[in-house]
């Protein structure tokens, strides 16, 4: 009997998960439909680009600089065990553009943006603002959801690109100030081994992460249950699920992009 009860519990959890997955897929398809049926609120999109993209620059920039600097120190320390200190510039550049840039940017944005989207839309839901939008002949999907998702998809690659540059610059600063690298040699080594593929693959990852952040933020916001506790839960869920999906999809994308 105990085994049956455990199996029932597992089955029920699995059923909840499948139902959630189904609703998420329907949500994505519905947004696509609304995107093509219009209208597209361009002003809202621009405002979201500013709010999601531009206002995230300081946190992304600082994270990238410190990560690049720490990475340079770690690679130097590890490389010195087999006299490979000279690889520091190229490994910092490749590591940041391929992996750390998009993933860190994605995770930071999951914390900063996905949560704020979920909280904002969740609060609008519990205070009947979504209902008010609807009665004012304004579809909440077109007005609120699509501009946010688009802004996330567009912002993330740009933020990642800026993060890549600042991360490499962080490594460069430590390289020439602490690790006794020659400035010119460091830059030559960085550019010599860095390929275009390293950069664009990171940007593709970032766009996918942006989509995940936008979708999960808005989905959790719209599915907020009533009350402050509901908004809190939606915020937490959006951050947790965005982060998990970013890390999982990062692995799958790495497999797809590099394991040819």
């Amino acid at each position, binding site marked *: 009997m105990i085994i049956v009860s455990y199996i029932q519990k597992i089955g029920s959890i699995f059923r909840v998960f499948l139902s959630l997955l189904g609703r998420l897929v329907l949500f994505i398809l519905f947004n696509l439909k609304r995107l093509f049926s219009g209208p597209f609120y361009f002003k809202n999109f621009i405002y979201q680009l500013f709010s999601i993209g531009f206002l995230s620059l300081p946190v992304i920039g600082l994270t990238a600089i410190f990560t690049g600097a720490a990475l340079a120190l770690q690679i130097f320390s590890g490389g010195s065990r087999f006299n490979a200190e000279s690889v520091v510039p190229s490994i910092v550049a490749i590591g940041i553009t391929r992996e750390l840039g998009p993933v860190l940017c994605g995770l930071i944005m999951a914390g900063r943006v996905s949560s704020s989207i979920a909280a904002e839309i969740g609060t609008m839901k519990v205070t009947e603002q979504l209902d*008010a939008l609807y009665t004012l002949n304004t579809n909440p999907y077109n007005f609120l959801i699509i501009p946010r998702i688009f802004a996330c998809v567009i912002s993330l690659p740009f933020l990642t690109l800026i993060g890549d540059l600042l991360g490499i610059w962080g490594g460069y600063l430590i390289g020439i100030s602490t690790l006794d690298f020659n400035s010119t040699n460091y830059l030559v080594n960085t550019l010599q081994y860095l390929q275009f593929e390293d950069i664009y693959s990171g940007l593709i990852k970032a766009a996918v992460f942006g989509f995940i952040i936008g979708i999960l933020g808005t989905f959790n916001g719209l599915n907020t249950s009533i009350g402050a506790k509901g908004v809190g839960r939606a915020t937490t869920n959006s951050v947790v699920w965005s982060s998990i999906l970013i890390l999982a999809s990062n692995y799958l994308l790495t497999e797809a992009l590099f394991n040819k």
Partner: protein
Amino acid sequence: MNQYPEIEVKNLTKNINSKQILTDINFKLNHKSHLVIIGGSGAGKSMLIKCILGLQSLSEGKVYFKGNNVSIKNERPEFLKQIGVCFQGNALFDSYKVWENVAFEKIHTKQLMSRKIARDNAVAKLLEVGLPTETADLYPFELSGGMQKRVGIARAIFSNPDILFFDEPTTGLDPLMSRKIIALIKEIMASSMKSAITITHDINLALSLASEILLLHEGHVEWSGLKTQIFKTKSKLIKEFLKGTIK
């Protein structure tokens, strides 16, 4: 004049997770009449309004607006253009200024209007509901509860709709402000000669505003009729409702 009633609800039933919330609701809202739906907490008043507005899907039944079935999605945009809704919690958009809230429909939908004209019209509506011009450029959170309610009413009447919906219009207001809001609604209804549906649990408010009253109890219509008939009814529930509230 249109031969159809403004709104007709036929056999409306709403189930949520196999629980029946509303059962076989039928009523008509006639031209220039003010129907007040009363009922205790959990009677299904808010759900009924949401079903009529299309915010909730119907399990069974139909809602007609001037003879058109607005339970069908394609018919709803036209219906929404001709209604104004004043929500219980006002539902003002925090990130927009007061005038932008009032003129929201005009500045964000296809019936575009220049911002200057929209602002001027919004200010005129704000004056109409008793708010000074200076409030136009404030944000909703800078206003008192009563002022927010007036902004909500200004937004509802901005497009000169055919039907107004008031969801618990005096909830959360002090008695003095409640009286002012009731007077304002009466004034709007008298001057606009439009139809309205109000939902409330307050029988005093119902008697003050209504031309017709509908009592909702546990999801079904317990009694409906003209306001003048309410004191003559033999409905036990209506009597209890009247005794419980009227001093």
